[in-house]
Every structure is written in structure tokens, then in C-alpha cells.
């Protein structure tokens, strides 16, 4: 298909249209607004035959699509920051009820102070809600993952909600060339599937019943295991997608990690900038590498351990904080991974880019130099540090 110019937001909307979604409910919030605008336009002009439910809040938006999903509809919602926090309660319920809801998240900082720019504070506050969580690096990847998301969510071995994270403004508002796949191919790859358990007046059943202490633990265990087991389907869906589109992303992008002295681990759009600095530093003989993670839940610990075992030190870049913890959310996962797989590689955490603070080339160089220092001295002086903050 012909390459077109789309922003991260409109790339997602375009995919949602091709996926022939039945019900959309969303509340506009910067920087997600243009995605909702585009979707309501598609519905209004007849390009997409869907029900668009305007609601008064994000809590209602997710509740509406949850109910539509329980009735068997293919659904979509999207939000950001404060809106995502308002959905928090319903996110647990969506995963607990095993409903294949797909949501786009324009990652943005969380108040206070009020701030509309990018970091990962909003999604990291939802990490234990039981959803599958992807991170994208480009508009093309956002588009491709949206199509994969429906195939994964609606797979009978998964039946879980999926969220697609793409950095606010950096991806949502940047126009890039995107090559979509044909409409028919989209629905052939991700066909709508009728689930066995759906709300139907002719065959009544209860969704969201009371799980007293005799039942709750088993129901929760079932949802936890479903998320753990989804990894296989996620990998398979990406491989199948690569066959039809020529584009696959895997669980991570590892760049020059094989012979490295240090690896910088990151999530989201910063991955491309990091790879550029790797190229520049490699020219000057510094053995640095980049590991850009694509999937945060389920956390692919075993697969990452393999990459991380080949280096001498690790720097984790967190674009979110976990105040009072020994490091940021990504750092805690990486450190637990190293320990669990008996890897004795020193690791440090850097928190940067909060509230849209720019992470420039010099900041990335500084992070790599910290890692190189740890690798040569074989010891960690400072476990957690902040880059780009004026002290």
C-alpha cells in the first residue's frame, strides 16, 4: 500500500478504522485529543461503521467499552495522564473479567505540578493492573502494534486487555511516513472472533459477580497466569505480522550489545536517539550498546537476561520515578531479572526526562560514560541518579 503521512495519533486511528472496531468510547485529553478527533470524524463521515459513545469522563469511557466488550463487540479507547489515572479502577476490572479491550496511551507526566508533556509516570502507575503493555518508538510501530494488539487480545489463549504506549507529543504529534497494510489483510490477520462467554439476553450470565474469599484467589490466579502465558502468543503474533508486512519488532531492539562494555536500557521513543549516540560513540572506540524494550508486561525477563549477560555493566533509563524505592520501575525489573538469572552484572539507574525535560545527546553520552566507569571500576558508587535536573 502507498506510504502516507501520519502522526502517532492518526496512525493509531487509521489502524482502528481498518480493524473495523464496533464501539469506541473516549474522552479527549492532551496529547491524545487528535486521535479521538480523527476517530469521531471516521464515524461521522461513514468511513467506520461504529458506535462512538461520548462520555463525561475516562472512568465512563473505559466502563463503556468494557461493557461493550462483554457483549462481544470489538472495542477501542484511548487516554493519557490524569485520564489514565481516572481509569485505574476499571483497568483492574477489565483484566479480571478477561476482556480484550485495546487502549492507546499517549504517555504524559502526572500532576502536581500540572504538566502536559511526556514521561512514563502515568503508565507506570498502572503496571499491576494486569494488562499487556507495549511501548512504541515510531508512528509506524504504533500503527503496526495496534493491529497486533487485537490479534493478541482476542486470541482464545489470551483474552486480556492490551495498552499501546506511545510518547506524548514526541510520537503523538510528529508526522512521519507510515506504510499501512491493505484493509483486507488487516482483517485477515486479526479477524473478529466470537467468544464463548458474552452478555446475551437469550443466554443470561453474570459478569463481575462477587468473589468471596472462597473464590477470589482462584479467579485472580487465573488472570495472573493468563498474562504470564500471553508471551508465547505475543511473539507468534509479531512473527506472523512480519510475514505479511515485512515489519516485525520483537520484544526488544538490541543494538551493538554483543561485544559491549555497557548497555543503556530504555523504553519508548528515546531508543532511536540512544542508537544514534551509540553509533557516534562507537566511532570513537567506546564499546556501548542500546537495549530498547518493546514489551513491559508481561516482562520478558528470560529473553532480556540473555542479552544482558553479554555486557560488563548496565545503565537503566527510567522516565518515571517510584518515590522512596531504591530505583525507578524499569530499574527494579532489570535488577530483579539479573538477580533471578544469577547474572553478576553491575547495574545503575538514571531517572531523566520527567515532565518533558529534554534528554539531549550530551545527556545520553553522560549516561553511557557512567556505565563505562562502572564497567572499568567493577563497582557501583551511586545506584540511582538524576540527569538533567538543576540542583
Amino acid at each position, binding site marked *: 500500500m502507498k506510504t502516507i503521512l501520519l502522526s502517532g495519533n492518526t496512525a493509531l486511528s487509521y489502524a482502528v478504522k481498518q480493524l473495523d472496531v464496533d464501539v469506541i468510547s473516549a474522552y479527549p485529553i492532551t496529547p491524545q485529543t487528535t486521535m479521538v478527533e480523527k476517530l469521531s470524524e471516521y464515524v461521522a463521515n461513514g468511513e467506520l461503521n461504529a458506535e462512538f459513545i461520548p462520555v463525561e469522563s475516562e472512568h465512563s469511557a473505559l466502563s463503556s467499552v468494557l461493557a461493550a466488550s462483554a457483549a462481544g463487540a470489538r472495542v477501542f479507547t484511548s487516554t493519557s495522564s490524569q485520564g489514565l489515572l481516572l481509569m485505574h479502577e476499571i483497568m483492574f476490572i477489565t483484566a479480571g473479567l478477561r*476482556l480484550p479491550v485495546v487502549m492507546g496511551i499517549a504517555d504524559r507526566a502526572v500532576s502536581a505540578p500540572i504538566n502536559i508533556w511526556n514521561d512514563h509516570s502515568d503508565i507506570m502507575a498502572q503496571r499491576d493492573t494486569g494488562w499487556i503493555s507495549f511501548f512504541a518508538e515510531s508512528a509506524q510501530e504504533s500503527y503496526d502494534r495496534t493491529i497486533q494488539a487485537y490479534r493478541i487480545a482476542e486470541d482464545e489463549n489470551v*483474552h486480556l486487555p492490551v495498552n499501546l504506549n506511545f510518547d506524548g507529543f514526541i510520537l503523538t504529534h510528529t508526522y512521519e511516513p507510515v506504510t499501512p497494510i491493505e484493509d483486507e489483510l488487516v482483517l485477515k490477520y486479526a479477524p473478529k472472533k466470537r467468544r464463548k*462467554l458474552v452478555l446475551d439476553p437469550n443466554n443470561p450470565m453474570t459478569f463481575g459477580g462477587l468473589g468471596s474469599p472462597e473464590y477470589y484467589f482462584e*479467579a485472580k490466579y*487465573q*488472570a495472573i497466569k493468563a498474562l504470564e502465558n500471553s508471551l508465547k502468543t505475543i511473539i507468534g503474533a509479531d512473527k506472523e505480522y512480519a510475514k505479511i508486512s515485512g515489519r516485525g519488532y520483537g520484544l526488544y531492539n538490541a543494538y551493538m550489545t554483543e561485544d559491549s562494555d555497557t548497555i543503556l536500557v530504555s523504553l519508548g521513543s528515546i531508543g532511536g536517539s540512544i542508537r544514534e549516540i551509540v553509533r557516534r560513540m562507537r566511532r570513537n572506540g567506546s564499546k556501548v550498546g542500546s537495549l530498547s524494550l518493546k514489551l513491559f508486561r508481561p516482562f520478558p525477563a528470560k529473553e532480556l537476561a540473555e542479552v544482558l549477560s553479554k555486557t560488563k555493566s548496565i545503565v537503566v533509563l527510567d522516565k518515571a520515578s517510584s518515590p522512596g524505592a531504591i530505583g525507578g520501575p524499569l530499574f527494579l525489573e532489570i535488577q530483579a531479572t539479573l538477580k533471578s538469572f544469577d547474572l553478576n552484572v553491575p547495574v545503575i539507574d538514571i531517572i531523566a526526562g520527567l515532565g518533558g525535560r529534554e534528554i539531549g545527546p550530551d545527556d545520553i553520552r553522560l549516561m553511557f560514560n557512567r556505565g563505562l566507569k562502572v564497567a572499568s571500576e567493577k563497582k557501583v558508587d551511586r545506584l540511582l541518579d538524576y540527569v538533567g535536573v538543576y540542583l
Partner: protein
Amino acid sequence: MPKKVSEMEEGFVMTTPRSSMQTKTGSWRAFKPVIDYSKCISCAICWSYCPEPAIFLKDGKYTVDYEYCKGCGICAAECPVKAITMVRESD
């Protein structure tokens, strides 16, 4: 009875309607409402206030269904002639 994970429907969906009847909530009770029929005037206030509802008209008498009564005590508090006493359940 607890169910095994493998016996449970996906997402804890209940496929049998009226399944709430299977949960006998009477076991939650710490105090039991006992009606003194020498005082009862059959006004039906206990029947209308019971949130379960676990009070029924049986053979012309308002009767507590102890399989479902949670022992909240609303009936005793609302009874205009103080015909209902809350009695501690024996262990």
C-alpha cells in the same frame, strides 16, 4: 465450596443465572433476629426493611430465613413494637 482454577469459567463469569442463591450468607451472622410473636402485630415493617430480603410471610406470620439472614439487625431496630431481639449466635 471453593472451586479449582480449572473448574472456573474465564474471568469468573457465572454462566448459571440465579447462582447468588447458592451462596448461603446466613453463615456470616454473629447476631440472630428472634421474633416474639406475642408482641408481633404483623405490620410488615421488618419485611419491607430487610435488605436481603430474608423475611417472608409464612402461614400468616413474618418469618426469618436463617439460611440467608446476615444478622444486620435493621429489622430489630425498625420494629415499632420491639418484637425482635438480636441474640448472639452460639459457637
